[in-house]
């Protein structure tokens, strides 16, 4: 899964007087369901064991979320 498909980013305004060290790029989540109004039939599927682990039978709807991404 390519997580960059499901993330967006922007550069917020940065003031020379920002009291905290400014974060120059902010990232946000664009979850898979945003791009799939109706699920197409016949999408590739995980094995039952993998599906249980990921929370979905279809890899195309799994975008993960890790604190290492630093979104918050």
């Amino acid at each position, binding site marked *: 899964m*390519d997580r*960059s*498909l499901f*993330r*967006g*980013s*922007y*550069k*917020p*305004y940065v003031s020379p007087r920002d009291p905290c060290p400014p974060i120059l790029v*902010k*990232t*946000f*989540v*664009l*979850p898979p369901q*945003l*791009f799939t109004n109706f699920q197409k039939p016949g999408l590739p599927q995980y094995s039952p064991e993998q599906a249980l682990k990921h929370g979905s039978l279809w890899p195309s709807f799994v975008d993960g979320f890790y604190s290492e991404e630093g979104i*918050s």
Partner: protein
Amino acid sequence: MWVYEKKLLYPVEVTTCNPMLARYIMEQYGGADGELAAALRYMNQRYTVPDKVIGLLTDISTEEFSHLEMLATMIYKLTKDATPEQLEKAGLGAHFVNHGHSLFYENAGGVPFTTTYIQSKGDPIADLYEDIAAEEKARATYQWLIDISDDPGINDALRFLRERENIHSLRFREAVELLKDERDRKKIF
């Protein structure tokens, strides 16, 4: 900063003393899906949404305040000379005891406004979807207000306000599309 124009966004013609209708309109004044909730919701979310949609939230919030002003005018005119007996008959006896002839941010059932009606999640998609839902709920509330009201002047203004909810919903949907264009993958390739 705001610049105030001392006129209503759209004219409000009130021809009858009708405290019962005023009470119903209070649903959009201080109710969960009302204009105050909308204005406060957008004005607060605007700080932490991507820069492309900050202006949209500020503008729509400002317009919601002008809608709030129209509703206040309706409620005021519909009740200003009503006697305590008339207010009581309209179900506004408790309102009169607490607030006299003044307006207050309450829904049609007399429940005072609370910020638990609104949310700011800090996730742009979650926030914009809440905003779209809020506009649709406000549109529906205007529909039921128009259905229950027999005042042609009030209904004319309510129809205008209902139409604005449609447009705001569309603008928020467009904002979601703008954010989808900010996809990281697209920028790399």
